């Protein structure tokens, strides 16, 4: 029998039991849709985090107290601005060093208020990280050294406090202390789970006075090039350890952060796909089951086909194609459903989703393979039926 003929017979058989075919497919549809959608969510999340880490700027070195390793407890910072001066001497360029002391504060302007993340920083922040101003100007080195109470608002804070009015030059209070607005940031969105648009930047000296502390929380350095980033990190850590013999410090690069996050998300995506794969497997068992029922129901037909010259192979191929057709049609429908689900999640929820070609190709290949694997046993059973016995069946 020609293969095109076998396809026609398989399609006819599926149409003869339309409802049963659809219900059988449903198992595969759901399984494939789950794989496609969950892999899309995993991939989308990974891409988003990578772009956020890369969006911070390039060749960044983050210096934090304590050791960065699994299970290590966070260490309270003992760094001060004096340490920053020491680090700056190691780096040799103040414009490449950024520091932060952060605190959640209520910011008011007239009767309006907004809860913002106050970031006490150096004037170097926009050159170390990627932060573009929408209006006005950032503060200067002299603003930092004199502890002047000036502030640059994130776009969300600016909108909440001033609406469409121009905030430049206006007075606000942060934690009850008066500041003057010198600029606003362009919208940046979320970054690693932090809403960058509800930040308010002020000179670190002013922030420390407001908070009654001389600590700094974190230190970031923009290395001149990728090659020297490791050596620079070692030198900075050494300088800090010399000043704080009892404390460990760690310097991590973006690549290291991305590597760790990528590994975690890769495992997570794999686990999600595996769970979805189980439902695909269950769908395959359903296909196998229904094919066995079909073979039994059509025993007489098989007997007749054999009597008029169908070889065991012809019958086997016919039933195998039927199973493969069930799962591949189910696979295509499942891909459609999975893509739709992924797009809806991406559009309607904060969870990002990215459908990739390789995931679709994999889902299609797996569904076809499921058809072959779960169709083989029923097909063999049909092919081996004794024509005498089959013809006698009523």
């Amino acid at each position, binding site marked *: *029998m*020609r293969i095109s*003929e076998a396809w026609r017979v398989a399609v*006819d058989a599926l149409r*003869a039991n339309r409802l049963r075919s659809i219900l059988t497919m449903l198992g595969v549809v759901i399984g494939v849709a789950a794989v496609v959608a969950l892999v899309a969510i995993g991939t989308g999340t990974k891409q988003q985090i990578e772009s956020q880490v890369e969006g911070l700027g390039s060749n960044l070195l983050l210096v934090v107290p304590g050791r960065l390793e699994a299970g290590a407890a966070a260490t309270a910072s003992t760094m001060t601005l004096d340490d920053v001066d020491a680090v700056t001497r190691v780096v040799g360029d103040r414009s490449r060093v950024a520091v932060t002391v952060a605190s959640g504060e209520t910011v008011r302007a007239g009767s309006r208020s907004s809860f913002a993340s106050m970031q006490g920083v150096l004037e170097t922040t926009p050159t170390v990280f990627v932060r573009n101003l929408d209006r006005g100007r950032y503060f200067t080195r002299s603003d930092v050294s004199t502890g002047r109470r000036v502030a640059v608002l994130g776009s969300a804070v600016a909108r909440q406090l001033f609406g469409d009015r121009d905030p430049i030059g206006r007075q606000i209070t942060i934690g009850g202390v008066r500041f003057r607005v010198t600029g606003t940031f362009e919208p940046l969105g979320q970054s690693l789970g932090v809403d960058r648009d509800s930040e308010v930047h002020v000179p670190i000296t002013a922030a420390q006075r407001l908070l009654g502390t001389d600590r700094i929380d974190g230190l970031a350095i923009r290395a001149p090039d990728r090659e020297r980033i490791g050596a620079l990190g070692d030198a900075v850590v050494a300088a800090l350890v010399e000043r704080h013999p009892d404390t460990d410090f760690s310097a991590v690069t973006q690549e290291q952060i991305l590597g760790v996050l990528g590994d975690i998300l890769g495992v997570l995506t794999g686990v999600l796909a595996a769970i979805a794969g189980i439902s695909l497997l269950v769908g395959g068992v359903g296909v196998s089951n229904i094919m066995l029922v079909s073979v039994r129901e059509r025993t*007489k*037909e098989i*007997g*007749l*086909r*054999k*009597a*008029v*010259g*169908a*070889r*065991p*192979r*012809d019958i086997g191929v016919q039933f195998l194609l039927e199973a493969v057709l069930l799962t591949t049609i189910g696979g295509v429908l499942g891909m459609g459903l999975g893509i739709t689900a992924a797009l809806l999640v991406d559009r309607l929820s904060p969870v990002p989703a990215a459908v990739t070609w390789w995931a679709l190709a994999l889902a299609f290949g797996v569904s076809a393979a499921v058809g072959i694997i779960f169709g083989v046993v029923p097909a063999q059973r049909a092919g081996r039926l*004794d*024509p*005498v016995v089959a*013809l006698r069946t009523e």
Partner: protein
Amino acid sequence: MTGSPAIVATDVARTYELDGVSVTALKAVSLTVEADDYLAIVGTSGSGKSTLMHLLGALDRPTSGTLLIGGRDVTTLDPGEMAKLRNETIGFVFQSFHLLARTTAQDNVALPLVYRGVPRRERRERAAAMLERVGLAHRAGHRPNQMTGGEQQRVAIARALVTGPSVLLADEPTGNLDSATGQAVLALLESLNSEGVAVVLVTHDKDVAARAHRQIRMRDGEIVPA
């Protein structure tokens, strides 16, 4: 083909294993079906006539003895080769017609050609010609449930003939038909026989058997004198 016999069975026996007990359905039967034979195999149910027909039709293999169908020794063939042999030399007509329910008369008739690898177009042409031969050209597009029993059996005969077999094996071909329709079906088989196709009827109906040129009576798995 005339001259050399269509089927030669020599000391053919068939035993079945049922729950570890061996049951002999056929004991050392010898039989020759000539190329232009019109033969009736009669006997009560359980006499072994169905088993004999399955063997003559290459649906089954003998436990012992030799069986030549179209000059080929069935005992040496695998199931695939037996299917090919059936397709090329045997036409089956069953009591219950065995037509595919969702398939038109024309496609039912064309079915054996599917397994011979004949292209679709040629299949349809040959099936249409065969339907015309059995007087059912006007039923080509109808499904079995739109036809009478007699028409269905004629479709089945057309299907048996479409491959140009040398032997027609008919198992109680009139069993599900009223007597007038049954007569018409037998007349059709007889006209085919006169055109040179060997016809083997399996029946328990004396009147049907009497129309054949010769009769073989089966009892307890053996041929007995008529």
